[in-house]
C-alpha cells in the first residue's frame, strides 16, 4: 500500500468518480486505501479538508478558488489537479412559473425561456415580491451559471431577483412550500422535485454552457506538492473510474453502487437516468436525452484547464464576490494544476492536451487540438448566447 487517503464528498451523482475508484478497486490497484467521508454541507467538507480530517475533497469548483483567495474566511491555498466532472445541474421552477416560460416536459430555446423569465421577474419585482431562486452555495457553479443565463437574457441577478443559498436536500421542500420560486441544483435533486410534482425543469446547465466546469478534486496545495507519490496514484484511479462511468456495460453496476445507503442513499433508477444523460423535465412526461448533460470523461473532461478557473474568477467578480485585480486573477488561475495532471496521468495513457489554457466556448465543430499524448478532438463547447471567453483578453480588462 502506498497509503491511505480520506476523501470528503457530498451525496451527489457527480461524486461518482471517487466512489467508483474505491468500489471498483481502481484505488486499491494503485495501492491506495481510499476512505470516503460523507457530509451534508460544503462548509463541513471544507472544514475537514482545511483542518486535516480529510486529505482530499469533492468540491464545487468556485469554492476551491474562494478558499484560496480567502473569501469569507482566512485564505488557505488549495490545488485542483483533476476535474471530477462537467455540468449535471438543472434549473427547476415551481410548476405554475415554468408553464409561463417554457413548453413543459422538454428542453426549449434558452434565449426565449430566459426572456420570458425576465418579463415575469419584472412583474414580480414591480409588485414588490421579487422571485427567489435557490442555489446550493454562494461559491458554486450553479450560482454562476444561473447568473450568466439571467444576465444574458435581460435579468439583473443582483437587482431583479433574489438568489439565496439552500442545501440540496431541502431544495425540493423549499420549492413545494413556496419559500423559493426556483432552484438550480445538481442531480439527483431536480428529479426529486419533479417526481414529487413540486417542480418543472426548464433548463439544464449544459444548455447554458456545453462544457461548464462543475466539481473538482481539491487538495491543500502544500500537501499536494509535497506528497505526489500519494496523490498521483489517486488521480490515476479517478481516471480509471471515469472510464468505468461512461462504459454502457457497467451502467447497472454503477447505478447500484451509487444508490447504496452509504453513498447517495437514493433511487438507482434516477441515478441510471442521470448517467445516461436522460433528464425528466416534468412529472408524467418521458425523460429526454440531453447531449452531454453530465460530462465526466470524454475529451479530456478531467483535465483542469487554467481557462476554466479564469472563467470562474470572472463570474465571481461579476457577482461582486471577488474584487477585480490581476493578482487575484493570477492566484485563481494557479489553483488549477494541469502540470500535475499531465505528470500523474502520462503513465496511465490518458490523452494529454498540449496547451493549459484555451478559448472557452470557442468550438462549434469537432476540432483537433494539440496534444502531447493521445489524439484529442474537442466538440462543441458553446455558451448558449454564442459568446466566448478569452482569458488573455479578460486579463487586459482588469486593474492592477
Amino acid at each position: 500500500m502506498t497509503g491511505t487517503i480520506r476523501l470528503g464528498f457530498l451525496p451527489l451523482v457527480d461524486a461518482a468518480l471517487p466512489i467508483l475508484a474505491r468500489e471498483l478497486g481502481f484505488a486499491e490497484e494503485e495501492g491506495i486505501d481510499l476512505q470516503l467521508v460523507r457530509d451534508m454541507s460544503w462548509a463541513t467538507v471544507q472544514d475537514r479538508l482545511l483542518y486535516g480530517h480529510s486529505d482530499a475533497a469533492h468540491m464545487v469548483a468556485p469554492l476551491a478558488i474562494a478558499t484560496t483567495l480567502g473569501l469569507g474566511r482566512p485564505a488557505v491555498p488549495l490545488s485542483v489537479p483533476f476535474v471530477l466532472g462537467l455540468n449535471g445541474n438543472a434549473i427547476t421552477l415551481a410548476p405554475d412559473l415554468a408553464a409561463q416560460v417554457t413548453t413543459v416536459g422538454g428542453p426549449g430555446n434558452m434565449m426565449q425561456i430566459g426572456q420570458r423569465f425576465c418579463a415575469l421577474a419584472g412583474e414580480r419585482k414591480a409588485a414588490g415580491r421579487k422571485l427567489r431562486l435557490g442555489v446550493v452555495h454562494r461559491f458554486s457553479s450553479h450560482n454562476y451559471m444561473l447568473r450568466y443565463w439571467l444576465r444574458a437574457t435581460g435579468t439583473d441577478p443582483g437587482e431583479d431577483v433574489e438568489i439565496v443559498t439552500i442545501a440540496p436536500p431541502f431544495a425540493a421542500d423549499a420549492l413545494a412550500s413556496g419559500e423559493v420560486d426556483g432552484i438550480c441544483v445538481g442531480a439527483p435533486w431536480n428529479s426529486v422535485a419533479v417526481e414529487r410534482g413540486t417542480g418543472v425543469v426548464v433548463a439544464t446547465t449544459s444548455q447554458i454552457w456545453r462544457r461548464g466546469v462543475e466539481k473538482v478534486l481539491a487538495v491543500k496545495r502544500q500537501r499536494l506538492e509535497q506528497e505526489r507519490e500519494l496523490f498521483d496514484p489517486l488521480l490515476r484511479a479517478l481516471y480509471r473510474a471515469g472510464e468505468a462511468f461512461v462504459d454502457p456495460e457497467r451502467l447497472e453496476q454503477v447505478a447500484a453502487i451509487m444508490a447504496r445507503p452509504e453513498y447517495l442513499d437514493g433511487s438507482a433508477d434516477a441515478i441510471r437516468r442521470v448517467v445516461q444523460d436522460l433528464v425528466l423535465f416534468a412529472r408524467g412526461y418521458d425523460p429526454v436525452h440531453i447531449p452531454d448533460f453530465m460530462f465526466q470523461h470524454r475529451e479530456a473532461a478531467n483535465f483542469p484547464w487554467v481557462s476554466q478557473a479564469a472563467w470562474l474568477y470572472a463570474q465571481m467578480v461579476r457577482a461582486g464576490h471577488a474584487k477585480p485585480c490581476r493578482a487575484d486573477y493570477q492566484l485563481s488561475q494557479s489553483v488549477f494544476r494541469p502540470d500535475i495532471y499531465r505528470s500523474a496521468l502520462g503513465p496511465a495513457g490518458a490523452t494529454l492536451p498540449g496547451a493549459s489554457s484555451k478559448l472557452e466556448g470557442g468550438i462549434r465543430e469537432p476540432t483537433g487540438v494539440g496534444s502531447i499524448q493521445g489524439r484529442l478532438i474537442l466538440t462543441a463547447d458553446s455558451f448558449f448566447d454564442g459568446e466566448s471567453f478569452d482569458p488573455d483578453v479578460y486579463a487586459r480588462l482588469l486593474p492592477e
Partner: protein
Amino acid sequence: MRIAIVDESPARAAVIREGLEASGLSDIAMMSERAGLVARIEAFAPDVILMDLASPQRDELEELFAVSRALAKPVAMFVDQSDDAAMEAAIDAGVSAYVVDGLKAERIRPIVDLAIKRFNAFARLRSELDEARTELAEHKAIDAAKALLMKKRGLDEPAAYAQLRKAAMDSGKRISEVAEALLTAEKLMGGL
C-alpha cells in the same frame, strides 16, 4: 454575550445550554427547526452561533452571514488560526462556531471550549444510552426465547438457557442473536 445554539437535536442543544448557563451565560436561544431559521437568527442577533459541524444548514447560514445587513458579520471561529489544537478539538467534537467579527479571542475561547466539552459529553451520553437500549432489547429477546423453550420443550429455566448458550457456541453467534432467530422462526412457523 448572546449565544444561539442551532441544533437539529433539541436534546443536545439542551445539554449545551445547561453547560453555558452553569458558567453564568444566560442570554441563550436554542433553535432546532429549519423553517424560518435565518429570520430568527437575524432577529436574535447573536454574538456567537454554535452548531453541529455536520449540519446540512451551514452553507445557508454562511450565505446569510455574507449578505446580511441586519447582522454584524459573524465568521467561522477558526479565523483564529494561531490555535491549531483548539480547531482540531472542535472539529473532532463536531462543533462549528461562528463569532461576530471583532469579538476578542479571550471572550470567545471559554465558550467554544465549553461547547466542545458539552458536545463530547453528549456523544458519550448517547453511546451509553444506545448500549443500554441494546442490552435491554437483548435481555428481552433472551427471556422470551427461554420462555418459548420452557413451554414447547418442557424444560426448566436453567436448561432452556443452557440450550440457547450451546446453540450460540455451536454456531459462533451471540446468545441474543440465537434468541432472535428462534423468535422469528416461531413467528413464521407458528403452531407447527
